[in-house]
């Protein structure tokens, strides 16, 4: 799919907890087709402190209404500016960027996410469901105050939750969940996105259980489309660009 630089109009900015919000963007023209796992580079104007675009993965898409949703965590200067966006504001994006999750031959998938890393898993779950693949979400959060938009996930599959303090779901990290303890029988694919330490543990789990696993990685990017070579990940094939050869990698190729 050809990459585009395009202006969108923000039609909704919905806060989902103290740090996270969902931006809904509308296009005047038919959207480019996007795949689960892909991302956009957002331009944040108005500050010399924020020179570069910000890579944000797709959370949801509605081709009929020509809208794209992004789940954003306020972490720094750029995302703080985004958090202040109001309906009617314009936002320029380069999209669609990167590769995508693969699901050929998959029957039953476990989607393991933590923090803002749950974002690409929502669109993935929707795509899997549309392809008659049963998704189960296993999502980890700090505590009940940091849950992210759970009803949106429940539309597409069963949602299992862990929190560090046990205030919702099971106590501990996603790796401590009883579904993991019980051996993951029946699952033939694991997808993961979240903090690196979590993805690495999930990759190890997948290897132990001999389940194929894909992780969506994060990295600091300047361009997002393969020119600058800033965002490389060390892999068995050498240093690969997270923005082009990724962000989705099979975990047996990643050198953590």
């Amino acid at each position, binding site marked *: 799919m*050809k*990459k*585009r*630089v395009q202006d969108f109009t923000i039609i909704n900015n919905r806060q989902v907890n103290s740090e996270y919000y969902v931006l809904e963007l509308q296009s005047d023209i038919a959207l480019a087709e996007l795949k689960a796992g892909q991302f956009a580079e957002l*331009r944040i104007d108005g500050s*010399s*402190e*924020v*020179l*570069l*675009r910000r890579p944000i993965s797709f959370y949801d898409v509605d081709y009929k209404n020509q809208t794209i949703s992004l789940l954003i965590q306020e972490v720094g200067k750029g995302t703080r500016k985004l958090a202040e966006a109001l309906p009617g504001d314009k936002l320029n994006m*380069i999209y669609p960027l990167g590769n995508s999750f693969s699901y050929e031959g998959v029957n039953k998938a476990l989607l393991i996410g933590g923090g803002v890393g749950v974002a690409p898993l929502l669109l993935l779950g929707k795509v899997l469901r549309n392809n008659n693949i049963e998704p189960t979400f296993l999502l980890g959060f700090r505590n009940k105050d940091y849950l992210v938009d759970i009803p949106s996930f429940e539309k597409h599959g069963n949602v299992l939750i862990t929190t560090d303090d046990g205030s919702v779901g099971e106590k501990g990290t996603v790796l401590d969940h009883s579904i993991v303890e019980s051996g993951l029988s029946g699952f033939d694919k694991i997808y993961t996105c979240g903090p690196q330490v979590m993805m690495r543990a999930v990759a190890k789990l997948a290897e132990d259980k001999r389940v194929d696993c894909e992780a969506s990685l994060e*990295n*600091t*990017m*300047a*361009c*997002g*489309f*393969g*020119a*600058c*070579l*800033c*965002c*490389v*990940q*060390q892999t068995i094939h*050498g*240093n690969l660009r997270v923005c082009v050869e990724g962000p989705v990698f099979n975990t047996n190729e990643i050198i953590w």
Partner: protein
Amino acid sequence: MVNLAVKIGDLEFKNPVSTASGCFGYGYEYEDFMDVNRLGAIFVKGTTGSNRDGNPYPRMAETPAGMLNSVGLQNKGVDYFISEIYPRIKEYESHIIVNVSGSTIEEYVEVSEKLNELDKIPAIELNISCPNVKEGGMVFGTHCPSAIEVTRSVRKAFTKTLIVKLSPNVTSIHEFAKAVEGAGADAISLINTLLGIAINSKTRKPVLSTVTGGLSGPAIKPVALRMVWQVYHSVKIPIVGMGGIMNATDAIEFILAGARAIQIGTANFIDPAVSIKVLEGIEDYCKENGFSDINDLVGALET
């Protein structure tokens, strides 16, 4: 009609707008966004004698009005360039100029000799100013006798247009400009990135894996303009100016300071079609200000 054609050594650029090495891949990364054939030249990624993996990540840190990088010349080497990349880009209507990098004089010479054989490579840009490799690179560009020696050696190996890219990490850049001019350079490009550090106060660690990196973006523009102006008044060979050009106005400033052509670097990451906007903006400036030839603006700064 405005004449936008400029000459860099014996080589005519159809217009003064080109894209900087390391910021434009090999050109095809930008094909979705713009017609790369409209550029005067494309300076492709730094190319070395053999494969280089580059530096560990993190390789990039955003800084006020700029960015630091420490990519470290990741590329698959000159032989891979010749067999896999050159066939894909040699039909571009813009000049393809390869940025030649190395750790030793022998490596610079080897790469230059191989590129000399390629019909559609009319020029090289000798990179003696990469701040992100342990050996070679900036060492050649910050020590005058080394700059002379590497330029002389490559001059013997490369018969076409030789552009030498200077490092700004020196006290008197015009001395280096004069030195490489004397050693046989046909043109000078400047500036490469400025050496800097980004620090994370929370972790009390540097942001980049290599501690130091090269600063680019609008933050360096005043320094770059000063250096272009100094070099313009020190040498006779043409200058390809760069350093934080974000728009046509910035480009005009470089031309007024003495640049005959300009390169756009970091701005490509933010607006991948910016180079075409700069090209159109330069033409508009000439029309609006009554200049029929871009060459009349080169070094026209009134002081």
